[in-house]
């Protein structure tokens, strides 16, 4: 089972159109300039209350059937997945440990073997369902605001 890239592209565009005013109001910068059927990646820059910036990349391949893969990178978007790129409010794998992050699933090397990708819209422990890019961005924004620094 897979999703044509054109379908994912349209879903991402719809979600971004809805959440863009939220990102502007929350002073989040985002870059979807290279978004296309061949490149389903968007970048969002979050910050904590101290003003430290955290650079997240959402790879939306096969979205919305499956969730995006969310990874933190360096400012240049070259290096990724290192502790020092992560705010200290997530799993030290390092990983955003939520059902809406494909990286969290055991089948992709993440810590959660008990989760199935197809169930990604179910609630993560301690919360309710997070089912759109808009809600993912709001969730990350809220959590990262409260980060006191980096993991490493």
């Amino acid at each position: 089972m897979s999703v044509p890239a054109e379908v994912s592209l349209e879903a991402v565009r719809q979600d971004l159109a809805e959440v863009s005013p939220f990102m502007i109001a929350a002073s989040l910068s985002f870059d979807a300039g290279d978004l296309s059927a061949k490149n389903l990646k968007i970048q969002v820059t979050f910050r904590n209350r101290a003003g430290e910036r955290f650079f997240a990349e959402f790879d939306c391949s096969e979205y919305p059937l499956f969730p995006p893969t969310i990874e933190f990178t360096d400012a240049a978007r070259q290096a990724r997945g290192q502790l020092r790129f992560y705010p200290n409010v997530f799993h030290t794998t390092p990983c955003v440990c939520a059902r809406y992050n494909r990286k969290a699933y055991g089948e992709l090397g993440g810590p959660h073997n008990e989760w199935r990708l197809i169930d990604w819209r179910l609630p993560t422990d301690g919360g309710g369902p997070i089912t759109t890019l808009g809600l993912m961005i709001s969730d990350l924004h809220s959590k990262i605001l409260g980060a006191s620094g980096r993991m490493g």
Partner: protein
Amino acid sequence: MAEEQNLAAGLEGKLNPGHRQDRCLHILVQTPRGLWSLTDPENAPRRPVYALNSKIQQIINDVREVFGFVENGNQYVLLHGDERLQPERTIESYHLDDGTLLILSVQGGNAV
């Protein structure tokens, strides 16, 4: 914005006839699903005009209803800039200006 101010004046008059108009405040709330204002969304069942002694929790309840944030279990928090507004406090206690933009933050769970 002029249209919003005129609407606000009209709504304040309806909410508090005969009272000083500064006892009500209209706000804007940006959510991940859209903006709540005196004009948006078009079919909203209520508008963000509040008596100053209203609790922040009332705004949260109302904006959830307007945008259908029915998912229980998530945390719904109003932010003014980066500041979390405490739900039990009143609007007046934050000294918000008329037309202030607030943000509804939706936060889900965190697995371990």
